[in-house]
């Protein structure tokens, strides 16, 4: 196996490119591609955040006209909802943790010179980029962007006359997602092959950092999930433009019979959520891996229960494919299947709880350093618990009757797959910035950014649970038409104010990021005194990652405070320590 691995590595060595275009634009270097993904996600997250701010403003001041955009109409609000969700899920939560950090650090952490398929890697980034351009283009065509929500339920999404934005805008939306799926599939293949075939000598599967495990399992989920969404998207395009009826039965729209016959609106939901639920884990698994990594590094203590963590990642990935029906308890699907999906969903709480216990176990008895990455890792644990705890409410169909499609749901998923994942991205940024750019980020600014983000996001999303319990439905552009909603406007106002403050806090991050890139303190090769392979190489790493030699791995990834060792950490390529007990 070892000789096979090193042979695979040698065949992938390629010379460093010369010239701007080959080096920074159409680069084959996984590190450059990782940065490209990262900055694409950064652009996308600010677009997505801006859209959410407009939503918040319209919700509490429906009559206010906005600069540039003018009056916000109810359909404009739904457009904002749709595009905010789509951009955030695909181009931020899927793009940054996996495409960005996974690309940059997976090969280095396993001791490889590059990804298994560098050309495919370049193609997957540019495909994703094209997808983003097409998505943004939907804003600028006649009728504007679609209003059918990020889930695109048919027939609303399948018939052009169902509302404004359901013409060309909706076509572009579907095409963009289809393009994104192709990019994600190529990326997934690359990640899986690289992890299986490109590991350095001694890097057994059970010595891989938990970040690598998370990226690896995420890639498997992506490979199985995006293909289904791609097929669903193509069928939806055909329903919209070629007169097929996969998802549309006989219906009338605006008094006109549409000509469709015999299709099933529930079929779309099954295809969508077969992708959509694993997608949640595609967003959060890398953040879980990141958090595990950082808690160990900054507690100066081995991760608690490495094997349990690996099995929990696998269990979450596996069960993640059997729970999609919990989005459909109220859809008209058989109530018997709801019962089965519910059991599976509650079951997925078990590996999630195991991870939380292990994170606490890692902190327990450590010597915690509160560097910026660690702050966000601790914030992640708190958010993961808070967002996770509302899961068992929604996972039980009998409680879902009341809570489904209320604000309880956005409250739940924003905390866990939204903000917790974003905290993973922030933690990763602060942690790996020195390796990527050779400079440190400013710790004071990072602390302020952390405080704004943690308190701010709780102030935004915790009250959404209260709104949901009180019966406030999602995706309502105004609260004027339902009497009991009038009482809830005060709480909505509070959320909007909190959103303003939280978003202002994100500007601190932006300033810190770009200022530190040029003016930050110079970083040493291993500023956090961590053990994994990326900290054994130069900062920033050379084109082939390890400057012509291939590391040999002798130790596990989390050997901190080893009794008898000369320092409080043992690098993975240090001489082998006595087997731990």
């Amino acid at each position, binding site marked *: 196996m070892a000789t096979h691995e090193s042979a695979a590595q040698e065949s992938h060595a390629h010379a460093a490119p010369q010239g701007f275009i080959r080096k920074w634009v159409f680069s084959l270097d996984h590190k450059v591609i990782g940065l490209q993904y990262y900055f694409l996600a950064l652009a996308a997250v600010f677009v997505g955040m801006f859209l959410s701010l407009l939503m918040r403003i319209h919700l509490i001041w429906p009559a206010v006209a906005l600069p540039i955009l003018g009056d916000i109409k109810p359909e404009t609000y739904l457009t904002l909802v749709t595009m905010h969700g789509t951009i955030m899920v695909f181009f931020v939560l899927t793009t940054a943790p996996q495409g960005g950090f996974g690309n940059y650090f997976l090969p280095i952490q396993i001791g490889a010179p590059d990804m298994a398929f560098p050309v495919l890697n370049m193609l997957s980034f540019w495909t994703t980029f094209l997808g983003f351009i097409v998505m943004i283009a939907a804003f600028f065509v006649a009728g504007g962007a679609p209003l059918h929500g990020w889930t695109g339920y048919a027939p609303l999404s399948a018939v052009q006359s169902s509302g404004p934005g359901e013409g060309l805008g909706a076509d572009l939306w579907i095409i963009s997602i289809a393009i994104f799926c192709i990019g994600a599939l190529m990326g997934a293949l690359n990640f899986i092959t690289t992890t299986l075939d490109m590991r350095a000598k001694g890097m057994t599967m059970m010595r891989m950092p938990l970040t690598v495990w998370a990226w690896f399992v995420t890639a498997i989920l992506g490979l199985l999930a995006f293909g289904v969404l791609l097929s669903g998207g193509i069928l939806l395009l055909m329903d919209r433009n070629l007169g097929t009826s996969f998802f549309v039965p006989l219906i009338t729209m605006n008094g006109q019979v549409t000509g469709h016959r015999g299709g099933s609106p529930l079929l779309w939901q099954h295809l969508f959520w077969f992708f959509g639920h694993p997608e949640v884990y595609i967003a959060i698994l890398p953040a879980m891996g990141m958090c595990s990594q950082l808690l160990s590094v900054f507690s100066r203590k081995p991760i608690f229960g490495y094997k349990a963590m690996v099995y929990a990642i696998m269990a979450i990935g596996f069960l993640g494919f059997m729970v999609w029906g919990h989005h459909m308890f*109220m*859809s008209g699907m058989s109530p018997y299947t709801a*019962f089965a999906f519910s059991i599976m969903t509650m079951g997925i709480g078990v590996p999630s709880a195991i991870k939380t216990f292990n994170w606490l176990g890692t902190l*327990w008895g450590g010597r*915690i350093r509160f560097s910026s990455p660690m702050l966000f890792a601790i914030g992640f644990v*708190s958010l993961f618990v808070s967002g996770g705890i509302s899961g068992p409410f929604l996972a039980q169909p009998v409680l879902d009757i009341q809570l489904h499609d209320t604000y309880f749901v956005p409250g739940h998923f924003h905390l866990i797959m939204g903000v917790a994942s974003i905290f993973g991205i922030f933690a990763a940024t602060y942690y790996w910035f020195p390796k990527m750019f050779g400079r440190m980020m400013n710790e004071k600014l990072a602390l302020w950014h952390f405080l704004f983000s943690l308190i701010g996001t709780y102030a935004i999303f915790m009250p959404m649970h209260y709104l949901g319990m009180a019966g406030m439905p999602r995706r309502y552009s105004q*609260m004027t*038409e339902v009497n009991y909603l009038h009482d809830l406007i005060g709480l909505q106002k509070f959320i909007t104010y909190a959103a303003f403050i939280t978003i202002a806090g994100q500007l601190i991050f932006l300033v810190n990021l770009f200022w530190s890139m040029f003016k930050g303190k110079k970083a040493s090769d291993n500023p956090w005194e961590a053990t994994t392979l990326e900290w054994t190489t130069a900062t920033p790493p050379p084109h082939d990652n390890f400057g012509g030699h291939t590391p040999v791995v002798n130790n596990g990834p989390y050997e901190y405070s080893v009794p008898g060792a000369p320092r409080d950490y043992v690098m993975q390529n240090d001489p082998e320590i006595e087997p*731990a007990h």
Partner: protein
Amino acid sequence: MGLVLLIIIWLITLVSTYFFVAKTWWLPVGASAAAPLIDHHFTVTFILMGVVFVAAQLALGYAVWLYRDRGSSSSKVAYSHGNTRLEVVWTVLTTILFVGLNLASSSIWASERFRAAEANAVRVEVTGMQFAWYFRYPGPDGKFGATNPELEDASAGGEAALGLDPKDPASKDDVVTGTMVVPVNREIEVILRAHDVIHSFFIPNMRFKQDAVPGLAIHMHFTPVQTGDYEILCAELCGLGHYKMHGMLKVVSQEEFDKWLAAREAEKQ
């Protein structure tokens, strides 16, 4: 910094929990037979999850404070890779908690969704369309007449909106209304339909929600136990007017209901 984190995490936990426990915002008043059962299970879940939430957050805040790096005065770091017995214990405990909760609620779900409505239930057909709800009663013959999509005229409202087919004799006595009127303490069988896109029939006070899907006739039931007026909402995104797809449920005594229905039927003669 450890102390700052402890204070922030504990404060967030305290404030969040306060508003839940004080019930500042809570479920709307329940007015159906199922409401007390559902609310009870909600409370059980709420207490169990609340305990887990508070315990985990307190432990997190406490751990980061207690085990902060105190420089040379720090105690030695415990070099440990974990504890298999602990892993087994918390795996088993969480499995029992989650699966147990689920099984405890399954009988309520079964009575709500597994069984059909009783034979003597009051039958109301509910149709959702952009952006209104219509309610149809079968009339003295007890039969819903045929409808024809070609005849639908949403802008005309009422019977025309549903596309009632005059050629079917059973449709002659059907009563179509914009407000749902039902008798108290009787089981109501709801037959849900949608003309254009998916809508969701949501009556918060009845603890009732079910999507209305084009192409399907979904049979559901609920039993109101309190007279009064209750708001009906659409809970599934259905287009630009989603937020104003609003209706009213009037729960009245059996006599009032009979009188009301007889008057509507008389108008049809």
